[in-house]
């Protein structure tokens, strides 16, 4: 976290086990460099993403979220990424409508062979979020979060 001046974006990435996580692995083994701002959570499928995960992450202190899964047609579970795509599209539009800036939540298709694309996606997302600055809306104001309702 650090102070405002030394702020570095903190980005949570949900990567599907079969494609994007393997893509990230490939980026690593191929020694492709990318921004160190992401923290990865491996999920079975991009269709597994519950919108609550994304909201909880934003509330808990990340500045942006990336969800990445298999390309259309490549889903290990045949259609998980298609189902996820609808949830993602509606959630993204809804949060933007509420005023969460465009770019805070991003989505990508990265296959197991696309180590380079993975690094590019991460760099782009990091750049976008760096431009947006720290997320202030919605984030819990402190570790305590709660103020007494009387004051």
């Amino acid at each position, binding site marked *: 976290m650090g102070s405002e001046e030394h702020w570095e974006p903190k980005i949570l990435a949900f990567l599907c086990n079969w494609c994007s996580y393997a893509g990230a692995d490939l980026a690593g083994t191929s020694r492709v460099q990318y921004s160190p701002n992401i923290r990865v959570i491996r999920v079975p499928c991009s269709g597994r993403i519950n919108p609550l995960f994304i909201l909880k992450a934003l509330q808990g202190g990340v500045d942006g979220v990336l969800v990445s899964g298999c390309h259309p047609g490549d889903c290990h579970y045949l259609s998980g990424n298609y189902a996820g795509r609808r949830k993602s599209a509606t959630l993204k539009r809804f949060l933007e409508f509420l005023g969460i800036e465009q770019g805070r939540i991003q989505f990508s298709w990265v296959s197991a062979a696309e180590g380079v694309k993975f690094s590019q996606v991460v760099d782009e997302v990091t750049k976008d979020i760096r431009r947006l600055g720290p997320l202030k809306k919605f984030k819990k104001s402190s*570790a*305590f*979060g*709660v*103020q*007494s*309702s*009387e*004051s």
Partner: protein
Amino acid sequence: MMFNLDKKDFDHFLKDLLETHDLFAPVQLTEGVSVFKKIDNPGEVSLSQLVPQKSAKEVFFPQSEVMFRYQIAGNQGPTVSEQKIERERILLGARPCDIEAISIIEKVFTGEDYTDVYFAEKRKRTTIIGLGCNHPLSTCFCSSTGGGPFNRAGSDLFFTDLGDAYFVELLTEKGMAFRVNKFFKEADSEDLGLMKEIEDKASQKVDRTVPVEGIEKRLDLMVESPFWDRAHEKCIGCGVCTFLCPTCHCFDITDEAVNQKGQRVRNWDSCLFPIYSLETSGHNPRPTGRERTRQRLMHKFNYYPKNFGRVACVGCGRCILYCPVQFDIREALVYASAKRGKGRKGKFK
């Protein structure tokens, strides 16, 4: 002791109070919605809504209240900090029903065996300025529950709106502390007469026919009555009535923590929520709306009276006004009475 406070001086009066006290009063959040809140400047005070959604209980028993905070550093035990009340407090503009309700909650929170320090401390440090109700609503039935629109019980000072001024009565020792106040002028007999007139008129308006007397005994016989099978039907199980009720005082205690820091918080809870009585094993002693509705009404009109000798309802009418499906507590009482051949003839929808 009786005084007159010119409304032109009202803001200055408040400003002076703010110098020395934390002041709590009704504040309008949006048109038609107000709550009791701590105020920073006199302009925030809004006395126009007779029954603000949230009652004055919030001043003594906030919806969310931090009981203590803690921090764990290294291997040392946690350091725990509690919140202290720094300044004396004033509750301004509470209506007689809300003030009555505070004494009802007080009986529970400062019982014989255990005292709730959070409530008790705030109660001790608060001076209550009551405000009479010149225009009671049709949903008000305080006169049926032992109060009235000008019931002064519990108030340290009591204000009556005379139009251009407030008629001020100092009623208790805490109230007498205000006898030297540069904005208070000696009240004359004309003021007194006007106040009496307003009081009489308002008192006549309030519904006295809600059959509260003897309800405890009648409900004793109704524990397994088929009435409950019907009464709960339209209740959707939200917490509006219990949260807005000035006498409901149930709460939940939870810990909120992030890493090494955290706090224990208590939040209002409602007996109408299934989760309220749900045990970890999955067993729920009050599994359906029937038991939960019974709990709500019985607590007010049977259980509480058994323990403390009066009903836990002050007739403010909030639960009637704000219920999404118009569950009318008055009619429930009428029904409970009519079945035994007394009071108004009841049918319950």
